[in-house]
């Protein structure tokens, strides 16, 4: 025990975030936070668009159409689509780990990879739809 304490004291502290290399799950976790914060910051835009899209006033619908036609807005929405998908997939992963599903190192690695692959592929699919490719 005391040997353990000795060792603990001598641990080097290395917290340079620009040099530390994280496992994929580490980046996926940080992105869960970034995506949650991004969604929170953009809620006013989302609720406003929801408001316009459900309005029965013709002017609102025209406004809705013209806003969502803008490429800039589409890029923002694309970012939000990714944020939601990543947050959603990663959220499910966290919930599963909370109930002790997929805690093993290898499984946790694969599920982090799955979160990245699934959310990025779905973002691509929804993005193509958003930009009217199909």
């Amino acid at each position, binding site marked *: 025990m005391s040997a353990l304490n000795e060792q603990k004291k001598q641990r080097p502290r290395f917290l340079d975030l620009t040099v530390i290399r994280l496992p994929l799950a580490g980046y996926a976790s940080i992105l869960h936070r970034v995506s949650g914060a991004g969604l*929170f910051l953009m809620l006013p835009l989302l609720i406003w668009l929801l*408001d316009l*899209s*459900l309005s029965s006033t013709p002017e609102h619908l025209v406004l809705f159409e013209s806003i969502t036609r803008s490429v800039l807005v589409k890029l923002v929405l694309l970012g939000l689509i990714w944020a939601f998908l990543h947050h959603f997939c990663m*959220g499910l992963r966290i*919930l599963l780990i909370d109930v002790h599903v997929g805690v093993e190192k290898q499984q946790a690695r694969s599920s982090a990879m799955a979160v990245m692959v699934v959310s990025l592929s779905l973002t691509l699919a929804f993005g193509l739809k958003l930009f009217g490719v199909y």
Partner: protein
Amino acid sequence: MSRLVVGAHYGIKDWLAQRITAVLMAIYTLVIFAAVLAGATSSHDAWRGFMAHGAVRSVTFLFIISLGYHAWVGVRDIWMDYIKPTSVRILLHVLTLLVLIGYVGWAIQIIWRL
């Protein structure tokens, strides 16, 4: 006696609330997604009709409440991690709470006036 404004007595409750709201929102997401695939957004009238339907309105209501609570816990956690000066942090907590209450009210009135 000095009062601690950084207590964690609400920790477990909010942790659990964040999980429950996450599950509710995840289910809602899948339901809405299925409805869209089935044509709920095929036209403006279809979209309005869909959102105005009693059952849809009820689950959307639950979703909005969940979102507000979930985001409150999540954003507060972020402030607690990064903002050290207590006064600034409390100010940010209050602002977050106020805007979230505003968003929830706004979103509810959107679906209620349909």
